[in-house]
């Protein structure tokens, strides 16, 4: 249904305020479908052409375009094409694909702030190059009337440019000053304005030194840093928003006459009857009024075993219905559901994280007052020494220009852009601006089990010990079912090359299992109580063939790709690895042994997890939490830094700093290494910038700094800092 949405700019302010309403209003049958897919694994030109060719070959696709930078495909197609079709088509080519909500994407597609910055950057670049040409002639010996003319032309270019390009700094500085605070933009603004004013004054008196080129180069370099910073954040933000678009918030409501209607989850009310089909997620809290099934609660509690559900039982929003259709009557909707109440824990834990001050902020706090004091001292000193306002002001301006944080403004964004680009190519999305710095400090890693270290899909473990005839029979019973355990049997048996036995009358009994007739006898595959077996501690399903003793099929949760490598690499890097899960002790212990994790905690409630992490933090550990479920959300927010996979629940992704886009866990270890080297580069950059200042500031204070020296120091430090950032490997 998402496929047929095409948001158009709405003139109605109410629609803008309630995008959901607008989306529903837009659901007209004749709109061409705009489909967006997230493709986390594409990386080269061959991937682009392969996907585009396959999509274009589809008869109903009008156009398809792959964006490698955003790892996304946008498809325009006939209205009847669904995103699901496209997703399957791309997955058939061997690429991972996720459906995205085209409506949410379009809202962020037009990055106006970014374009505005780019435009200001271009104008500043154009002007500074022209003024630099004029300045070079002045430095190489133009004198008298020629010099004055060059200065006036420079002024004519510089003034409008500064007025246009400098606006972001002026605005930010004004906002800080009106709050009686100092930020990095205050010295920048002061330097630019002072440079312009003294240069104009000098020019009108036919003076020798004008700083128009410096003012423009300053604006250009700082805007470059600003733009890099913005771009990294904009990509992360739009991708984070597209992840929230992964879950399409629709539900099937039953009307009084018994008809089904598809509605937005936001429109559900207490007392509504809602139909949840197998594979669907409960949109609200409620009680089952009709149907039997099994429900998967792993995202909420971390349990891997499906739970039996029948009439009268209560279900919570976020649980997944597995086998039979269920009709539920809503008892709590929206913010009142248990899903949302748990998400509230996050808000409490999150307040702790905002205490982290980024390296850039720390530098700015030291820097801004220092520069102002230095410049003021230079002014006062020279005024008292010469009693000449013009000389004193010139020197104060020179000091401000020399110390202006060009290199500092580039030091952090250049490195974070390089590092986040690198991590994005590996399939990691940095959501929070200080996440990299915090990731670099991590010494303890806490993993959740279900859905994080394990894929959440079971795997048959005792196939080799089972009689072949029983496996054939089980395959015949299991192959038609969508229950995860049945699918695991089917997968394992097919891989072993086993053919199904001949049975008749296969029927699935939702909530219990599958039964069929074999030679006039009933055979059953399902839960222990239904097949007359004794339950066991592990995840198991049982096959009952007539009067023979039931045979157990035992399952273990399948490890997620790269899980073992990630744990091993983190341990090799000297980090302490913990496993915390809401699952049973035996299941957690088995997995911990399999991965060689010695510290684990089983049957943990959400509050246990977060308090354990709090305790670790109090002991001085910097904790990285990796988790996906709702039961991890509070822990994710409580940790120093957190990572969640793209398959995680909305609330968990919101609470985490970094999102893993692909299914593979192995980038986690290398991300820690990248983060550490990025932080090292940032510190190096600060040192480089400081060295330039230490050399140039005494010259400026002594009044020996010409515009040429200022231009050289500024450009050289900015370029060194950028090159140093590119060294990041």
């Amino acid at each position, binding site marked *: 249904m998402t496929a047929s949405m095409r948001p158009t700019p709405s003139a109605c302010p109410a629609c803008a305020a309630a995008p959901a309403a607008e989306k529903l209003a837009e659901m007209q049958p004749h709109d061409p479908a705009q489909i967006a897919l997230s493709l986390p694994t594409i990386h080269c*030109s061959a991937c682009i052409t392969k996907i585009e060719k396959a999509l274009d070959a589809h008869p109903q696709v009008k156009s398809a*375009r792959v*964006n490698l930078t955003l790892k996304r495909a946008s498809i325009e197609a006939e209205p009847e094409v669904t995103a699901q079709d496209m997703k399957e088509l791309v997955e058939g080519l061997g690429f991972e694909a996720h459906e995205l909500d085209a409506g949410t994407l379009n809202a962020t597609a037009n990055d106006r702030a970014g374009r505005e910055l780019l435009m200001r950057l*271009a104008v500043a670049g154009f002007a500074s190059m022209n003024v630099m040409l004029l300045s070079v002639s002045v430095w190489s010996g133009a004198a008298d009337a020629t010099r004055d003319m060059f200065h006036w032309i420079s002024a004519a270019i510089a003034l409008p440019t500064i007025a246009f390009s400098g606006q972001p700094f002026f605005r930010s500085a004004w906002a800080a000053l009106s709050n009686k605070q100092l930020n990095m933009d205050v010295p920048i603004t002061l330097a630019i304005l002072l440079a312009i004013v003294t240069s104009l004054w000098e020019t009108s008196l036919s003076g020798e030194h004008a700083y128009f080129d410096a003012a423009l180069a300053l604006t250009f370099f700082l805007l470059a840093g600003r733009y890099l910073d913005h771009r990294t954040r904009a990509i992360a933000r739009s991708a984070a928003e597209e992840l929230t678009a992964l879950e399409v918030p629709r539900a099937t409501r039953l009307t009084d006459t018994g008809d089904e209607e598809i509605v937005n989850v936001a429109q559900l009310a207490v007392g509504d009857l809602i139909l949840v089909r197998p594979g669907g997620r409960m949109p609200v809290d409620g009680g089952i009024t009709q149907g039997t099934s099994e429900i998967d609660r792993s995202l909420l509690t971390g349990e891997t075993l499906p739970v039996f559900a029948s009439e009268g039982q209560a279900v919570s929003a976020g649980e997944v219905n597995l086998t039979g259709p269920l009709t539920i009557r809503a008892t709590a909707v929206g913010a009142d559901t248990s899903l949302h109440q748990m998400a509230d824990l996050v808000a409490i834990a999150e307040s702790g994280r905002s205490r982290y001050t980024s390296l850039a902020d720390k530098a700015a706090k030291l820097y801004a007052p220092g520069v102002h004091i230095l410049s003021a001292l230079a002014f006062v000193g020279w005024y008292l020494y010469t009693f000449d306002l013009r000389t004193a002001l010139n020197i104060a301006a020179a000091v401000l220009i020399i110390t202006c944080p060009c290199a500092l403004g580039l030091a952090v964004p250049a490195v974070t852009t390089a590092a986040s680009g690198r991590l994005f190519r590996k399939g990691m999305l940095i959501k929070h601006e200080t996440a990299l710095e915090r990731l670099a400090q991590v010494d303890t890693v806490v993993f959740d089990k279900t859905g994080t270290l394990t894929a959440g899909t079971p795997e048959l473990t005792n196939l080799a010990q089972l009689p072949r005839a029983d496996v054939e029979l089980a395959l015949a019973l299991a192959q038609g079912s969508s229950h995860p355990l049945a699918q695991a049997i089917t997968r394992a048996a097919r891989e072993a090359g086993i053919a199904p036995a001949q049975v008749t009358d296969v029927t699935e009994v939702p909530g219990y299992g599958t039964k069929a007739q074999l030679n006039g006898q009933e055979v059953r595959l399902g839960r222990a109580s239904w097949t007359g077996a004794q339950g066991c501690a592990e995840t198991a399903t049982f096959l009952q063939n007539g009067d023979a003793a039931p045979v157990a099929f035992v399952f273990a949760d399948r490890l997620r790709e790269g899980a073992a490598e990630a744990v091993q690499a983190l341990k090799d890097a000297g980090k302490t690895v913990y496993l915390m899960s809401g699952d049973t002790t035996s299941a957690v212990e088995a997995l911990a042994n399999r991965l060689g994790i010695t510290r684990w905690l089983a049957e943990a409630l959400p509050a246990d997890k977060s308090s354990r992490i709090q305790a670790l933090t109090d002991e001085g550990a910097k904790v990285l939490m990796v988790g996906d479920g709702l039961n991890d959300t509070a822990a994710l927010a409580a940790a120093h830094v957190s990572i969640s996979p793209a398959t995680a629940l909305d609330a968990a992704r919101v609470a985490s700093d970094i999102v893993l886009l692909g299914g593979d866990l192995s980038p986690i270890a290398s991300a820690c290494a990248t983060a550490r080297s990025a932080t090292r580069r940032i510190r190096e950059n600060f040192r480089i910038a400081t060295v330039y200042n230490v050399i140039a500031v005494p010259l400026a204070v002594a009044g020996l700094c010409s515009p040429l020296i200022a231009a050289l120091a500024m450009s050289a430090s900015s370029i060194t800092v950028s090159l140093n950032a590119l060294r990041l490997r």
Partner: protein
Amino acid sequence: MTILAYLIPISLFLGGVGLVFFVYTVKSNQYDDPEGDARRILSDEYDDHPKR
């Protein structure tokens, strides 16, 4: 030095042409997928006539 009367306007004009051209490239979405565009030139597929 009269040559400056020609050269300075000419250099400003040429720079301005560059600026206007850059503004055009920004407006026509040419920086949306820098990485993809860099790879596309390596492919033999011409995609300047999209399927309609």
